[in-house]
């Protein structure tokens, strides 16, 4: 391989070719030859540099000089000055930047303008594997403060005053929970972190642990001090290997710095932390099941009361909070309860992290003050619905939650408003659905999940959810009757009332909320045997429009079961008895002659 002492990159992108980069290349050839440089300098044609407006663009390495608006006449000078004598042709250098008014940093884009990052304050900012970086951003300052300046009672009071509520789903006031655990009398207490995150589509907790594990560790130590516990457990699913690895590194580093272990900050407070891996069963996120699982037994829920604050791990008083709940603790201590309480709505303080997904342009993680409207999240932060489709509903709260229809887009997102609409905050999954979504199908999706994940301990949940799923399957198969809808309602109410744990108690919610807002869709399935959104395959047919079909035959090649037939000049037809509804033909038809007929 020949070694060149310089590379000349000539942009060969469309923009620059249009402005004659081809001529430049041959001109370079000529002048390099004239100067006997052909064997030392290599000319490379590259793709677009993105500066088409200032093309043609030439970049010379190793200096990396970028010359713009290079004319054929300039080539001689570049070769003789730069390549031969090593003097950069400054008059051709590209210097001005951002001439197009493009935002260059995330901070400036719409996506972040409405966000407020408290739990995610360090995510994307620090290196999670270096404790020093966490410390650089005020890490462990809150722990130092509580240990040296505050009594445990004052810590509990601060959390109470802040108005923080649990981010794991239920929204129970965290300060109260801390107080109950602190007041319980026992020689041994525990602090636990729920990092199970079983909701489909949710990844808020994983992101906090991957991006800022120390914030959870610090918060758990603070909680340990406040409630009188010296041992903590983080329960995390094994399917989160990166989060587990970074947690392990973080715990190790915290121990090395004496931020975990004995006599932290020279006080007589000692605190240790261990990780417990879960197998990823949804029910293990339920608090009593989680603790049974930590004890090494099968993760099954047990009746409450007694609540964990009284009898938790190994029957000792235990404080259990969610990852995001913990991530809020250090800022509350550092900045004060009043600061936190000033953010959000009257009864929901602070911010909430959402994993926004589904039919939305900007899928991702967002953290917004409580009270931000759903419309702001969907349209201003989320960038709206792709492909010019309209918004139909947002699903929050996962399998325990429900749907919010377009008529309620202006709902301020907080615990109580969402409950009022028949949905719930849940842990923060937010799935946006457009006009092409079948709401009965969505309810079926969540029910399938619940049936799979039910632990089977109590009959209402084990048997009842299965029956509900069967009815939904009947309806989406086009075999439902109106009696089925009534049956669904009765079953749903009874299961809610009778199930042993939160899983069963909330499992009917997706059905109840879709029935409430989209009953007409259920009725269309049952009465007209039609799926208005064109999703349920049994009720939908692919048809070829005789007017639009140009008899090109392309759809025949696409069809995997060979059920399309036709001949030249005659519109093609689909044999609907054989069609497996794969949609391949519709995608292929260049004349958009194939339709879904719901």
């Amino acid at each position, binding site marked *: 391989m020949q070694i060149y002492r310089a590379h000349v990159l000539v942009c060969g992108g469309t923009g620059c070719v249009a402005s004659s980069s081809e001529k430049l290349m041959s001109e370079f050839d000529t002048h390099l030859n004239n100067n006997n440089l052909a064997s030392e300098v290599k000319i490379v044609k590259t793709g677009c540099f993105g500066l088409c407006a200032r093309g043609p663009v030439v970049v010379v390495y190793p200096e990396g000089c970028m010359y713009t608006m290079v004319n054929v006449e300039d080539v001689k000078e570049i070769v003789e000055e730069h390549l031969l004598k090593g003097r950069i042709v400054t008059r051709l250098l590209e210097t001005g930047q951002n001439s197009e008014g493009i935002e*260059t*940093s995330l901070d400036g884009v719409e996506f972040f303008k409405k966000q407020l990052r408290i739990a995610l304050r360090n*995510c*994307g900012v620090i290196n999670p594997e270096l404790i020093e970086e966490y410390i650089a951003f005020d890490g462990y300052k809150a722990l130092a403060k509580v240990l040296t300046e505050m009594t445990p009672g004052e810590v509990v009071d601060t959390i109470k005053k802040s108005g923080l509520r649990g981010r794991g789903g239920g929204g129970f006031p965290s300060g109260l929970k801390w107080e109950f655990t602190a007041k319980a009398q026992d020689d041994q207490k525990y602090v636990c972190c729920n990092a199970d995150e079983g909701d489909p589509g949710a990844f808020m907790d994983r992101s906090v642990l991957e991006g800022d594990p120390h914030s959870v560790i610090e918060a758990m130590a603070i909680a340990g001090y406040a409630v009188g516990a010296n041992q903590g457990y983080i329960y995390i699913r094994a399917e989160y290997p990166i989060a587990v690895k970074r947690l392990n590194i973080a715990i190790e580093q915290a121990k090395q*710095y004496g931020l975990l272990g004995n006599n932290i900050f020279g006080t007589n407070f000692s605190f240790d932390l261990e990780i417990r891996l879960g197998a990823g069963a949804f029910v293990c996120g339920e608090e009593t099941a989680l603790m049974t699982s930590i004890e090494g037994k099968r993760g099954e829920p047990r009746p409450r009361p007694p609540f964990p604050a009284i009898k938790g791990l190994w029957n000792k008083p235990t404080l259990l909070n969610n990852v995001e709940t913990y991530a809020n603790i250090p800022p509350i201590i550092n900045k004060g309860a009043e600061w936190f309480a000033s953010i959000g709505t009257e009864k929901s303080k602070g911010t909430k992290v959402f994993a926004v997904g589904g039919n939305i342009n900007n899928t*991702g993680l967002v953290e917004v003050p409580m009270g931000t409207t759903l419309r702001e999240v969907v349209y201003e932060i989320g960038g709206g619905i792709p492909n010019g489709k309209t918004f139909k509903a947002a699903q929050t709260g996962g399998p325990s939650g429900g749907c919010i229809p377009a008529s309620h887009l202006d709902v301020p997102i907080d615990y109580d408003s969402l409950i009022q609409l028949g949905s719930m905050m849940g842990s923060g999954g937010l799935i946006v659905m457009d006009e092409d979504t079948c709401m009965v199908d969505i309810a079926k999706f969540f029910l399938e999940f619940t049936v799979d994940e039910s632990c089977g301990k109590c009959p209402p949940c084990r048997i009842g959810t299965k029956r509900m799923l069967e009815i939904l399957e009947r309806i989406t198969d086009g075999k439902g009757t109106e009696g089925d809808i009534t049956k669904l309602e009765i079953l749903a109410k009874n299961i809610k009332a009778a199930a042993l744990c939160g899983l069963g108690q909330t499992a009917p919610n997706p059905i109840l909320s879709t029935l409430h807002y989209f009953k007409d869709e259920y009725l269309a399935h049952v009465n007209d045997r039609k799926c208005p959104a064109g999703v349920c395959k049994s009720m939908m047919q692919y048809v070829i429009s005789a007017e639009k079909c140009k008899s090109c035959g392309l759809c025949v090649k696409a069809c995997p079961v060979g059920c399309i037939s036709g001949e030249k000049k005659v519109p093609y037809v689909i044999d609907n008895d054989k069609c497996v509804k794969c949609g391949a033909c519709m995608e292929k038809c260049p004349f958009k002659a194939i339709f879904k007929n719901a």
Partner: protein
Amino acid sequence: MKSITELEELRKKALEKMGVRANTDGYRIVVGMATCGIAAGARPVMNSFMEELQKREIKNASVTMTGCVGVCRLEPIVEVIDPSGNKTTYVKMTSEKAVRIVAEHIVNGRVCLDYTIGYEDKK
């Protein structure tokens, strides 16, 4: 850790090392390495940055990683923080883009506009 003073000293030292303050003279290249970043190919991008810096014997730049930035659809995401603290967010990164960013942004101080988040958003 025996005292708050000790923590405070450590904090100051770490802050200086991170070069987030205006008076340090290095570039900080921060690669998003959460699950979705890694799935989108952040690891080879990070490696390319390190190789390129080494190859060009660039001393005033460091490569580090971080967690989820929030815009998972644009992963891999890399932020370049210049010596005066200005942040540039590059999205949908590849090894090739990394090489060009080192040449243009780190060496010549010119932002590669066409790889930035704003440019992507305008598309």
